[in-house]
């Protein structure tokens, strides 16, 4: 029941007593801030939202390419985007408890609230993705061709833009709070969300490309993923330095090791290595594809663990009154 079980020390020092190993007075070591009530569904939402956003970017990049395989990639990405956009509302609903509560989010547009903007971003993104999917369906002649009027050329870059936003806003959402760890990461976390989102998107699209037998663009996807992953690693390292003591809940202890093993090493370093291996070492196609799939899976896992670490470490950070007393400006 108690965050900090009572100890005789409390009695000796009194509520405001100072213990040597403590940075300052507190009220019985009671948390100042409330923990966010966010569990697996929100973590998954943040994770998939990032991938969805990254996929939007890929849609445009590949769509503008002159290579037909890239355009096929873009088409798969468009379908994936829409699928991801469709998964997110149920996830949000599972967090909110009741379906009508999701609609409630659309009562107003509130520029001050990243969550409001984010949901609108998600809705608009779904619209753009839907338009683009219609376009592709018409192109594929599954649907009447006139439907293409719903997908003017500007829709592709729009989806990309909205994608960048949906990948980024999740970071703004958590860092625009009072949680010391998150607030400290007001620059790092949004940037990390974008990078990790795009890396995850590359990984997902790699798998989709291989599964759909369109493995030609995989190499380019892997190069983009490498750039994003490198940026992610750099940002992570810089955040660790920047956060200092406030970063403890994220970078130290069990959770720190988990982040290191699954995200830094397993989710970034090893996939990078595998990708480099793929680029320099000649290997048969089947092996190459297997390597790509493995690297991608690892990247995705790393991305999930990163989101999970943010949320869980944020809860710990909220529970530390001394951190909360030094709210980052």
């Amino acid at each position: 029941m108690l965050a900090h079980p009572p100890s005789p020390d409390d009695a000796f020092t009194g509520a405001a007593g100072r213990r040597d190993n403590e940075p300052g007075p507190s009220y019985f070591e009671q948390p100042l801030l409330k923990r966010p009530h966010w569990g697996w569904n929100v973590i998954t939402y943040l994770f998939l939202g990032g991938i969805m956003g990254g996929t939007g970017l890929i849609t445009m990049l590949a769509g503008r390419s002159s290579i037909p395989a890239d355009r096929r990639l873009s088409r798969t990405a468009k379908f994936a985007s829409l699928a991801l956009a469709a998964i997110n509302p149920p996830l949000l609903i599972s967090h909110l408890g009741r379906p009508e509560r999701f609609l409630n989010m659309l009562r107003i547009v509130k520029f001050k609230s990243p969550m409001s903007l984010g949901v609108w971003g998600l809705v608009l993104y779904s619209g753009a993705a839907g338009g683009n999917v219609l376009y592709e369906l018409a192109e594929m002649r599954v649907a009447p061709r006139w439907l293409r009027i719903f997908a003017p050329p500007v829709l592709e870059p729009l989806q990309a833009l909205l994608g960048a936003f949906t990948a980024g806003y999740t970071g703004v959402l958590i860092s625009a709070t009072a949680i010391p760890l998150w607030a400290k990461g007001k620059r790092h976390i949004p940037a990390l969300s974008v990078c990790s989102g795009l890396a995850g998107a590359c990984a997902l699209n790699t798998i989709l490309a291989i599964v759909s037998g369109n493995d030609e663009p995989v190499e380019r996807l892997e190069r983009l993923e490498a750039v994003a992953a490198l940026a992610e690693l750099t940002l992570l390292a810089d955040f660790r330095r920047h956060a200092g003591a406030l970063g403890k809940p994220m970078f130290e202890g069990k959770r720190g090791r988990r982040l290191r093993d699954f995200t830094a090493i397993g989710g970034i370093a090893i996939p990078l290595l595998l990708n480099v291996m793929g680029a320099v070492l000649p290997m048969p196609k089947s092996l190459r594809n297997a390597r790509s799939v493995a690297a991608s899976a690892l990247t995705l896992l790393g991305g999930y663990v990163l989101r999970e670490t943010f949320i869980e470490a944020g809860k710990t950070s909220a529970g530390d009154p001394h951190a909360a007393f030094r709210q980052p400006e």
Partner: protein
Amino acid sequence: MANGFFTDTTLCIGCKACEVACKQWNELPSDGLAFTGMSYDNTLRLSGTTWRHVAFVEDREVGTTIVNRWSMMSDVCKHCTHAGCMEACPTGAIIRNEFGDVYIQPDVCNGCGYCVPSCPFGVVDLIEPFKPSAAKAAEYNTATLDRERLSEGALQSHGGIAGKCTLCYDRQRLGFTPACAKACPTESIQFGNVDDLKARARKRVERLRERGVDAQLYGVDETTSVGDLNAFFLLTQPPEHYNLPARPVLPSTHQPAGYAAAALAAAALAVAGLAIFRGR
């Protein structure tokens, strides 16, 4: 101008009448039975179902174990001028009402929980169902019926939404004093127009200082981003002793940097992507 509270800790006798009156008026359930050993504080914090909380700060002379000061302080939502909870709320459930107070409309709130980490004072929280464990019930060898009924009743109307002090919006509309202030026997909680209260509070600080009491106002003439608090306090010890942040920060101030960083990252990656996909 807004209505609010001036809570004068030098007058507080720690009777908790405010805490109980609030629960009674708002039909909030008990938060459970746990002996904490932390002075006389067994509720420990504000919660979704505890909207007033009386803190007991046992201070002592340096170098001895003897407590010579015991400060009691009745904490509550600050009804900030710039309210983090209100800015964060995506549904517009949190509004500033006609009395200038920060009010959660229970029928609009959708329980997203975003206001919770957005309050720099750790005030607002989601109301979660209270489930007394069988073991607890046996340990206390009591019928838990009433407690369950009470919490169920409250949950049916409030379930899964954010909860915090309404500044007795319903009572104010009827022209009544908020329940907590009404119940306070020593006028430690004073309700009224915030400007009047501030004037009164400044005088009070002066008088206390004349008497040699190290009094200071908390939440008045704020230079921090949350601005002045419509529920402000007179303290005699550093804010941290009462579990208050010395320099609260309005979370939305982080947003410009965040959006910029995200945009920058996205732009950089887009350029890289263009290079990679165009380069053929």
